[in-house]
């Protein structure tokens, strides 16, 4: 199980890489492992507004679907459209090629409510 130190984590198993006023978002290595083979990722359209903790898309595996929640509020600046053809990139490289959306943050202060790698790992270990 791999939880990079440079990322922030939400309790609903999304990660965010915050650079300037922009956050790249995906689901964690733990989440992809729990879902199994991911076959489809439904992403919002560029320009749509997202709110911290609210669903912005869905991640679909063979026998399960999970909401993708926004770890931070803002406007969708970019989506990873390559996932349309290769959704399994999320399984293979959750923090790299499996990224899902980039959010232009409207309230960067929200980041303080997210966990760091150590906090997330602890939460995950205690059976979340």
């Amino acid at each position: 199980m791999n939880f990079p130190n440079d990322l922030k984590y939400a309790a609903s198993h999304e990660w965010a890489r915050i650079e300037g006023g922009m956050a790249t978002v995906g689901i964690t290595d733990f989440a992809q492992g729990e879902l199994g083979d991911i076959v489809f990722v439904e992403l919002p359209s560029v320009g749509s507004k997202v709110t911290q903790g609210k669903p912005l898309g869905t991640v679909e595996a063979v026998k399960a679907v999970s909401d993708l929640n926004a770890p931070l509020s803002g406007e969708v600046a970019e989506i990873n459209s390559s996932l349309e053809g290769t959704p399994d990139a999320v399984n293979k490289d959750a923090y790299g090629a499996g990224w899902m959306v980039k959010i232009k943050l409207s309230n960067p202060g929200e980041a303080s409510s997210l966990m760091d790698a150590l906090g997330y790992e602890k939460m995950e270990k205690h059976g979340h």
Partner: protein
Amino acid sequence: MPYIPNTDQNREAMLKRIGVKSFDELIADIPEAIRLKAELKLPKALAEMEAVKEIKALAEQNKPASSLVSFLGGGAYDHYIPAAIDHILLRSEFYTAYTPYQAEVSQGTLQAIYEFQSLITALTGMDAANASMYDGATALAEAGILACNHTKRKQLIIARTVHPAYRQVLTTYAGGAGIAVVEIGFKDGVTDLEALKKAVGQNTAGVLIQHPNFFGHLEQVDEISVLAHQAGAVLAVSVDPISLGLLKSPGEYGADIVTGEGQPLGMPTNLGGPYLGLFAVRTNLLRLMPGRLVGLTTDAKGQEGAVLTLQTREQHIRREKATSNICSNEALCALAATAYLSLMGRSGLKQVAELCLQKSHYLSQKLKPAFNAPFFKEFVIRPNRPVEKLLEELKKTGILGGLDLETFYPELKGCLMLAVTEKRTREELDLIASKING
């Protein structure tokens, strides 16, 4: 249902095991005030022989369409059903209503559904079809919901030339989902294009039409398709599958969703069904499609097999986010349609359609059609006397004379709709024409 006897000894043993002294004690939680005190008002028990006699007498009060000459249509048609279909349907392997979740023990059912989907896809000119819906009405209503989900818009436009019952079902669905339904009137038996042009806009999720429409007439599908797509709306078309033996497939004129009533494909006309909803879409709408879907895959040994696929759209995975709360399909009816289309083949279906077309036009030339638009197998006339009276006269000679349109369209008082299938003979057509003109 098995017959399970329930003797006094049985009851006593059960009460004892439960640990109560009497039946009253068992239902002590039910307040006295709401208990039924009287005996059920049932006639006394009959011996099997007596029961058979009584049921038979009741059944004989019915006059099945098969013993009459039927010109009734309006969504259910008296087409010929090849004898082989019943034999296939009566195979007990197909009888189960159980969902074929376990592919390893359901290959027969899954393959039959897969074949059905393939046939409907080919017939409609679409990319994928589901395992079926309840009937033509629910299929069209679900198409409306799909259009709204896809476009994220909340208004549907439906032609008044669509089957009245289908329009009612759509209204029911839309009410629950907070969707506005706008109805477009007709001119000379087909949708009024000018009115449609005015109504379609940036809020329109879908334009819903029937082709051939309820009156049997052909809509101006190419123009309607352009109007719908210009506004970014989805075009959903409800079809008579038999007509597709002759008419351009909906895929060719740009339909995004094709629905229909599958009853003409090897099913008898039953009051209240069971019927068969057809539902097919283009690839881009696949994930929003309601109902069940069977796909082909290979197992670990590389052998081909059929499985339920894209199940996450279904309610047993995520009830609150399911595409639709219809997860059932009409598998046995779908099997009848599969058998029918397989037996008929491409040329057989074309022949049935041609016979319907020719025979209905033979009759229409002897009568005066009310509308002046091209039609397939059904048309409207204005007889020279009250429709109700005419239908009574026809019934006396063993003819089911068609549908009194006033029931559904007050503005068409005095109009009668006749459906002519390949089963009608020249003698029957001459007879009804002489009666109507007499």
